[in-house]
């Protein structure tokens, strides 16, 4: 399986296979029946006046898939929901990106999309928090807000007519992410939800599940309503001597490794599952690094299979 080059021993291999097989049987039969590959014909009733959506094309009157994925039908719309692919943005998505370039009045960000995204100086709150016109001085000070390579959290604002993507960061919760690590997972593993920022108080950790598959796990930052440029600079120089506290760092690494394991196994990354996995490792005394070892992968797969089976059982019970 992808990304899983584990030195499994015989029993572990059997257990992993069993768990994965269990997952396969638990999945709704419709899902695997609706799976298509490139150039597969999608059966439709042409009298219905269907609308061809993402991942489909017309070939000699037939609807044909142009991607691998799962066929979804919403009323008249037929489209292919992709699995592994680059990020497909939607307005309002919360994303994590990395600054690539500073251009006049704008930053360009890498966000795992087919193009760089643009964050205009005018689409973000200034550090002084005052609503006003952007001056030439602000433009010159852009680098004090975000530098090249900075990791930034923002929201998808919309598309321009030329197909490029615009972002905005008009709230204190958006902005630069400082101390922590950035993971990348396939975007299909992150579900769109109400909440993408998670401040895990019990660990003093911020975890942001970007819709674009960039996941930030870092030290919790207290949002100050007013921070000025100078303060920001001073903090950075003082930071050099003050590393992340050991306890927090342990939590960050544990959560990050939990996310790594789940993504390698191809499980949807929800905040609950990440925390559960991290807690499971803690309660069974697995060292942080050993979470990336074969045994923990197998354990996680088994736990997930069991969880889904329970979920299904409960649903069925409720239906009766």
């Amino acid at each position, binding site marked *: 399986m992808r990304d899983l*080059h*584990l*030195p499994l021993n015989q029993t572990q291999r059997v257990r992993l296979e069993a768990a994965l097989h269990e997952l396969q049987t638990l999945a709704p039969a419709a899902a695997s029946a609706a799976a298509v590959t490139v150039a597969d014909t999608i059966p439709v009733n042409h009298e219905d006046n269907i609308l061809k959506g993402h991942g489909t094309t017309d070939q000699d009157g037939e609807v044909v898939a142009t991607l691998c994925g799962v066929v979804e039908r919403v009323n008249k719309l037929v489209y292919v929901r992709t699995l592994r692919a680059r990020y497909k943005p939607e307005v309002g998505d919360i994303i994590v990106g*990395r600054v*690539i370039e500073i251009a006049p009045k704008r930053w360009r960000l890498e966000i795992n999309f087919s193009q760089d995204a643009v964050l205009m100086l005018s689409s973000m709150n200034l550090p002084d928090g005052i609503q006003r016109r952007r001056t030439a001085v602000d433009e010159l000070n852009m680098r004090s807000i975000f*530098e*090249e*390579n*900075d*990791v930034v959290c923002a929201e998808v604002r919309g598309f321009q007519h030329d197909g490029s993507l615009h972002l905005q960061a008009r709230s204190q919760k958006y902005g*630069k*992410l*400082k*101390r*922590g*690590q*950035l993971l990348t997972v396939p975007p299909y593993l992150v579900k769109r939800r109400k909440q993408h920022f998670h401040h895990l108080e019990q660990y003093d950790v911020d975890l942001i599940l970007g819709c674009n598959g960039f996941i930030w796990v*870092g*030290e919790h930052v207290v949002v100050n309503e007013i921070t000025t440029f100078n303060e920001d600079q001073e903090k*950075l120089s003082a*930071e*050099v001597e003050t*590393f*992340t506290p*050991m306890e927090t*760092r*342990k939590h960050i*690494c*544990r959560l*990050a*490794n939990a996310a*790594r394991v789940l993504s390698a196994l191809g499980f949807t990354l929800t905040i609950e599952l990440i925390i559960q996995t991290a807690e499971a490792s803690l309660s069974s005394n697995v*060292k*942080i*690094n*050993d*979470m*990336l*070892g*074969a045994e923990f992968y197998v354990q996680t797969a088994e736990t997930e299979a069991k969880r889904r089976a329970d979920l299904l059982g409960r649903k069925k019970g409720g239906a009766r």
Partner: protein
Amino acid sequence: MVGLSEGEKHFIRGGIAQDLRADGRTRLQFRAVTVETGIIPQANGSARVRMGATEVIASVKAELGKPTILHPGKGKVSIYVDCSPTAAPMFEGRGSEELSAELSVALQRCLLGGKSGAGAAIDLSSLIVIEGKACWDLYIDGLVVSSDGNLLDALAAAIKVALSDTGIPKVNVSLNAETDGEPEFDISDEDFLQFDTSSVPVIVTLTKVGKHYIVDATSEEESQMSSAVSVSVNRLGQICGMTKRGGAGLDPSVIFDMISVAKHVSQRFISLLDSEIAAAEAADAE
């Protein structure tokens, strides 16, 4: 290559100082290593080594050749490394040449000794068929398929495993007068001599970040290095070669300290590889 923000760099440096790296490893801990042998059937020996997201392939080909006049009692070995663009788009075209050359030369230095080949970690005299007339030329090729730091150590490990997988055909030499004393070779298809790899060293690279040094750095960690020392150590704990990279100067006492740490770590790494080789051979036999 890797762009990191100030905050991330700080986090990495802090992790190394506190002995808890981003993936939970301690400073002297390796990533999980997996080994496969015999993956290139056309070669005399081959191996694939994975360390985290780093993946390299090494192949050994043996061809009959002539020893040089200066060293009639020694075979020849050449090491050449290529970085495939599949590992990173920056390796396309001529983009990999510099790194490939750096890795090739570092491996030659650590495994083959100087020009005379006297200090070579691979026993060159075992490659001789007839002194002064015929010897085996070993062509060792490394290929970086996926790159996430610590390429040198991974390549050296792959070469070590590939050599242990290498069978050199038995040669029957018949000298006859008709061909003016030129020997005729009868290369056996069935009988192979196993290459003695007990003395082939491994390379351990210690990457210095801040005040501390780490083994098996990922590419993110490598981007924070001030300097790195690669030491090749064999099973007996002898140092076979050394390379220092990176701009920052090192205090000699720090270097001695790093060497002794490398020596210690290398023994662990060798036994790790040994067990992986045994497992790979068992898997092959199945």
